[in-house]
């Protein structure tokens, strides 16, 4: 029976010790769990490439230590596949750390393993707020749904001067988190959410027309929409325009999932005027980002664009590199977690740090508007909220207690 | 024994049974004949409960069974064979017969004991298989058998139900003439108190077998009587028998 050996998706050993002369043979093994096949393959590719660009641009980041990445496919978002992968990475491959995790269920299902095996895990995407509470071994470099949702709620009142809002969301945990976050901030600042419309599950892009029709009839100042990043966003833009909501004076706002960078140009002029809050977009104006995007386009084609998941992969590798160097290649779990707590980094998304108390990320949220510039769609920065924490844990909402 | 009163059945405007009054006596050897499309098979379907009559009633031993489901009628002793084989084609001859016998003995729903260990069922099945000279084919699957042999399994299944009323829908159709005697022998050895209704085309055989004949034309009873009476009936000869008898 060779079933089990076949299981390994592929062991990619990569040595990044630029200084060939190093005699140090300490190899740190990192398990990477991403949905390389199936519907999430696109996301896995963004994260994976983000990791590679980091290593290309920062050849010396790991110091004299060798790092081996062992990649495993988590396939569908059932949690079970990811958990099996994590279990085998720990038991068989004896990894020192784990990273990846696009889907929240994958991280949630695996959390007990991190605790049990005492293996630090750097979450590169999964955005359900309370994930970091599930295990002391988790640090997150991506975001929680509350980051953008809360920021957008605040900005809708303060910057866009909105008084009423309707929320439309995909009816699954990130959607409900977004609704809670937006509503909390919007109403705390004096606005009023007049309707909340669940718009079907995340599995399929629904026909948004009836939901948007309902929102239109409520005549709010802003229509806050959360849908899974990717294909849903395209349909949202189409329906918003087809129903003439813009002419009706309803502003469409949402987290950056609405404007996935690599799909932005495909959305056409219909996307112009869309306002989002997010921790990254490819048009951010800073030196790190310029270099990041340039390298990306050089390596993956002029039409390829990194998105927020890509930068999360980049920052995740940076966090791991920091921990490896800090621990001198001996990845004692408590020590590693301590090294990650309070870690600060200048990322393409701007300055970020890991909150020592919650092990979750603290970063800027950018308010941007889609504009047309030189024949291309560009996300124009119209405001920044700096050092945003996960407000779910700050406010001790629901499961974040 | 089995009786119908004013039995009618129509599919839309098409009348396939009209006011059929019919009696099958205890121990009868009765034949039902009639031209193609006369409604013979429909009549069997009505008797067994495959079809519900539009009007009229069916009585078994004086008791009204018109509304009774098919399975319940079988339990009361009405068994049939089909004009076109209706067998469990993927199963062996033995299994085919066992299924029928198990149902009759009321163990068809038993879950714990292996079907291969039901001595009573197996013995009964073996007896029937032997009776129809299928012994060499016991372990063969139906699809491996020639059509004629399958026909015999059809009979074995019906007999496995120990019927009191046996309805045979053209039992000899498809059996090579060399083997029809097996069938006839089997019917001949049936207990005398079973009422048998046989639908047939082969007039020669019908007249040898039947003690009574009913002629069905266009869904209605056209004539009824002993073979001699029917053979002598001019109208019957005119509408139907003529050529068949002369041949």
């Amino acid at each position, binding site marked *: 029976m060779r079933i089990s050996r076949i299981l390994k998706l592929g062991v990619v050993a990569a040595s990044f010790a630029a200084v060939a002369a190093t005699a140090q043979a300490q190899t740190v093994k990192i398990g990477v769990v991403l949905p390389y096949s199936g*519907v999430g*393959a*696109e996301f896995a590719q963004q994260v994976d490439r983000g990791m590679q660009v980091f290593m290309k641009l920062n050849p010396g980041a790991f110091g004299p230590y060798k790092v081996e990445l062992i990649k495993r496919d988590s396939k569908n978002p059932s949690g079970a596949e990811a958990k099996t992968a994590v279990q085998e990475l720990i038991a068989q491959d004896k990894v020192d750390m784990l990273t990846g995790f696009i889907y929240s269920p994958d991280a949630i299902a695996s959390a007990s393993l991190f605790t049990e095996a005492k293996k630090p895990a750097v979450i590169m995407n999964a955005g359900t707020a309370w994930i970091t509470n599930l295990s002391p071994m988790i640090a997150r470099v991506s975001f929680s749904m509350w980051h953008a949702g809360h920021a957008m709620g605040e900005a809708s009142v303060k910057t866009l001067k909105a008084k009423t809002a309707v929320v439309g969301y995909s*009816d699954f945990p990130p959607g409900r988190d977004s609704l809670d976050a937006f509503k909390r901030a919007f109403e705390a600042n004096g606005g009023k959410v007049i309707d909340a*419309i*669940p*718009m*079907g*599950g995340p*599995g*399929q*892009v*629904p*026909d948004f*027309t*009836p*939901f948007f*029709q*309902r929102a239109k*009839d409520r005549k709010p100042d802003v229509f806050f929409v959360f849908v899974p990043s*990717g*294909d849903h966003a*395209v*349909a949202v833009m*189409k329906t918003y*325009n*087809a*129903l*003439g909501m813009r002419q009706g004076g309803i502003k469409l706002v949402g987290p950056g999932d609405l404007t996935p960078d690599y*799909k932005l140009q*495909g*959305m*056409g002029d219909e996307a112009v005027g869309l306002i989002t809050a997010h921790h990254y977009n490819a048009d951010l104006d800073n030196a790190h980002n310029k270099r990041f995007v340039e390298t990306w386009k050089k390596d993956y084609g002029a039409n390829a664009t990194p998105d927020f998941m890509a930068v999360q992969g980049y920052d995740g590798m940076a966090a791991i590199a920091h921990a490896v160097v800090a621990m001198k290649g001996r990845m004692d779990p408590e020590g590693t977690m301590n090294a990650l707590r309070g870690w600060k980094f200048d990322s393409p998304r701007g300055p970020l740090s890991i909150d020592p108390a919650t092990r979750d990320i603290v970063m800027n949220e950018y308010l941007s508007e889609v504009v047309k510039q030189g024949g291309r769609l560009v996300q124009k920065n119209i405001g920044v909220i700096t050092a945003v924490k996960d407000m779910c844990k700050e406010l001790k909402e629901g499961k974040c207690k | 024994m089995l009786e119908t009163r004013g039995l009618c059945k129509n*599919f839309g405007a098409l009348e396939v049974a009209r006011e059929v009054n019919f009696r099958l006596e205890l121990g009868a050897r009765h034949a039902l004949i009639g031209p193609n499309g006369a409604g013979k098979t429909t009549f069997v379907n009505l008797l067994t409960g495959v079809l519900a009559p539009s009007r009229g009633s069916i009585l078994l031993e004086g008791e009204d069974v018109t509304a009774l489901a098919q399975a319940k009628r079988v339990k009361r002793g009405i068994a049939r064979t089909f004009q076109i084989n209706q067998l469990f084609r993927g199963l062996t001859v033995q299994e085919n017969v066992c299924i029928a016998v198990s149902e009759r003995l009321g163990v068809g729903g038993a879950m714990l004991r292996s079907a291969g260990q039901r001595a009573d069922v197996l013995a009964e099945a073996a007896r029937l298989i032997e009776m129809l000279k299928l012994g060499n084919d016991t372990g063969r699957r139906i699809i491996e058998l020639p059509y004629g042999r399958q026909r015999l399994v059809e009979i074995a299944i019906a007999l496995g139900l120990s019927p009191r009323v046996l309805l045979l829908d053209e039992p000899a159709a498809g059996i090579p003439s060399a083997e029809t005697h097996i069938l006839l022998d089997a019917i001949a050895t049936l207990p005398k108190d079973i009422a048998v209704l046989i639908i047939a085309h082969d007039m020669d055989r019908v007249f040898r077998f039947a003690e009574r004949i009913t002629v069905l034309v266009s869904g209605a009873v056209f004539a009824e009587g002993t073979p001699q009476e029917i053979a002598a009936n001019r109208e019957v000869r005119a509408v139907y028998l003529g050529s068949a008898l002369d041949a």
Partner: protein
Amino acid sequence: MDPVSILLGGLSSGMVLFIVSVGLSVTMGLMGFVNLAHGGFAMLGGYVIVLAMKHWGLSFVPALALAFVVVAAFSVVLERLLYARLYRAQELDQVLFTIGLVFVMTAAVTLGVGPETQVIRLPDWLRGQTDLGFMTYRTYSLALIVVGTLLVIALWLGFERTRYGARIRAAVDNRRMAQSLGIDVGRLFTVAFALGSGLAAVGGGLGAEILGLDPNYPLRYLVYFLIVVAVGGLGKVTGVFFAALLIGVLDFVLKLYFPKGGTLFIYALALMLLLWRPQGLFGRKSA
């Protein structure tokens, strides 16, 4: 909320369902073939349109016609080579085969074109809003309603008024009888299959604006297509039409007024309808 716009919204999504599903209904009714890959032909149609518009600069309407022809031709090849071998097979084998086919189509499109959603650029005259006099409404939805209505009339005439249609109806009602009347049912099916697949392709293209278009399309909407066919009754063009409209409008209304229930209602409704009338709302009861 005004009832007219609700009705229009529901009707337009119902029309898409109709255009895609009608072919499935005919082929299933005709040969009793459980063709779970039908949505695959719709998807292929959509991709033909995308590629034709991108690479050959075709405009939308000619691209639709091209999709019909290409997919219909492709379906004939598949039908003769593969489907025909399974006409007498068990339902189960047909399910296995057609699901396998869906996987192949999905994977082939993913490999060849990519996993992302494709956008079909509509011509300007189909975009935006149209003033109907008493109200304005989404132009594309109105166009869908017109196209769907014309199509059902054309199909109805074809089925009821031509010899070919009469043969198909005869074969749906009683295949053996039709065969004994000298109708070449095999060829009839090939033609119906090609027509059905071609229509699905057109539906895939027309519906992309509403249903989207990506490699997972065939499985995602399979349940919807099957519901329409089952509720409409096998092989009944007008039945499928009314079933599609009914489901389109109900789905729209329920989502509008009870978004919390998600798609719960539509499945519950389909379930109850099917239990009440297993042969479909518009199907004839089999004897």
